């Protein structure tokens, strides 16, 4: 558990309130774990395979759709491609809540910037803001992102780690299924692909993650970002995992559930001096 030091004087107290998270509850959590035997709740992670490539005239992102909570599948068809701006999208792996809130915050900040400057937002702006924020929180915010977009300076693809480091790359994969997806990418990527070939490649890479990594599964979502049309999400571009067998169950007959107690409460009292008009 975290070691929490007692504040010695007012300087320590002020120091402990500077920036980042407030760690006051850590002392409470340590007490609960030690004395009351209460374990802290675990965050829901998305196992995940996400990837992105830069082709001629486009950036293509793709993701699987499984969210896991330990060994259980929490969501079979969740959305991992997040909208940041019309021309900037982000695929996310890591803690589901962190991803949702971080990307929504970026979306709102970038929209405000777009209105303030009157220009199309740039990918490098989002990268800088994300990496600064993640670094500030020292990796406690579990977001691993593949950020892609097409702005005035051209197509860009970045990969951002939870501790705040960034890499600018022609193709990238992240998440628990990243090794499976990277195997496909390394074998088949080349920079002169068309958009159709690019879509097929990312879908193949995600499929590789879906079938070979247990933390990834479900369907393939693809997002194509071009210069003129901006970003276009192809939700469930491929659905390689339809349920194969479903038995026909007879409906439960009326009266199946045992009724233990019946209470009828008068909630409404009708006033007799109210006259209904015709």
């Amino acid at each position, binding site marked *: 558990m975290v070691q929490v030091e007692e504040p010695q004087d007012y300087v320590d107290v002020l120091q402990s309130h500077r920036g980042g998270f407030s760690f006051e509850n850590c002392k409470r959590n340590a007490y609960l774990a030690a004395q009351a035997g209460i374990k802290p709740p675990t965050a829901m992670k998305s*196992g995940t395979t996400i990837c992105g490539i830069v082709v001629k005239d486009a950036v293509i992102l793709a993701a699987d759709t*499984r969210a*896991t909570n330990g*060994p*259980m*599948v929490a969501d*079979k068809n969740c959305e991992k491609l997040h909208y940041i701006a019309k021309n900037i999208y982000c695929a996310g792996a890591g803690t589901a809540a962190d991803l949702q809130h971080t990307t929504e915050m970026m979306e709102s900040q970038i929209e405000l910037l777009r209105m303030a400057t009157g220009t199309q937002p740039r990918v490098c702006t989002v990268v800088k803001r994300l990496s600064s924020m993640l670094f500030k929180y020292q990796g406690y915010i579990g977001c691993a992102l593949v950020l892609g977009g097409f702005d005035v300076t051209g197509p860009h693809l970045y990969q951002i780690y939870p501790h705040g480091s960034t890499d600018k790359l022609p193709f990238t994969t992240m998440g*628990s299924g990243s090794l499976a997806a990277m195997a496909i990418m390394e074998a088949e990527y080349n920079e002169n692909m068309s958009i159709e070939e690019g879509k097929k490649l990312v879908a193949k890479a995600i499929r590789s993650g*879906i*079938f*070979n*990594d*247990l*933390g*990834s*599964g*479900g369907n393939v979502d693809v997002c194509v970002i071009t210069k003129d049309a901006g970003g276009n999400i192809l939700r469930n571009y491929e659905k*390689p*995992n339809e*349920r*194969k*067998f*479903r*038995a026909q*169950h007879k409906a*439960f*007959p009326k*009266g*199946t*559930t*045992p009724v233990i107690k019946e209470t009828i409460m008068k909630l409404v009292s009708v006033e007799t001096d109210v006259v209904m008009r015709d």
Partner: protein
Amino acid sequence: MQAPVEHRWSPYADNGGTCLGVAGEDFVVVAADTRLSQGYSIHTRDCSKVTQLTDKCVIVSCGMKADAITLHKHLKARLVMYEHQHRKQASVTAIAQMLATTLYYKRFFPYYTFNVLCGIDDEGKGAVYHYDAIGSFERVPYTTSGSGSSLVMSVLDAQIAKGNQTVDTPPLDKRGIVELAKDVLSSVGERDIHTGDYAEIFLIDASGVTPTRFDLKLD
């Protein structure tokens, strides 16, 4: 400087998977998936958890595959010796007791297996026995074991025991139970990451052991 952390090598591994057994009037249905996994990786998609011990008895084990292989091998050897001594095949009740003592022999370094023993007893009725890792066992009308067992048990409780229902519907027949087992394994394959790929269903009745196979999701 980090506080000292003790690193211990563990002799056990969890290879995942789910299995279930349901006893009928004069038959037993055994079902298990065939995925072998470790952590987030798949070792193989096609590995049977089930071993046929006699004409009327089948054992299925979830947990650690290495221990399951050794345990099944050990049991088969003991059963050959039983046949030589007694001039007949061991009954399900005899095998059940032997499995319990075999498991308890390794009380202080257990077989990491969660077994379900199924077969037809001497009276011709279906028998299912549920075991823990060290040999505590009980004859039950139906049971389940493995990583998806909590998902399966609730469904079996509702559809077979019907303890939460007042209306009397007739019990499921052979075909109904096989359909239920298929549906249950498909459902567990949807929600448990360690269960999937293919499933084996064994129907044991007076005519012997009939295996069938069907597909689960591969993701």
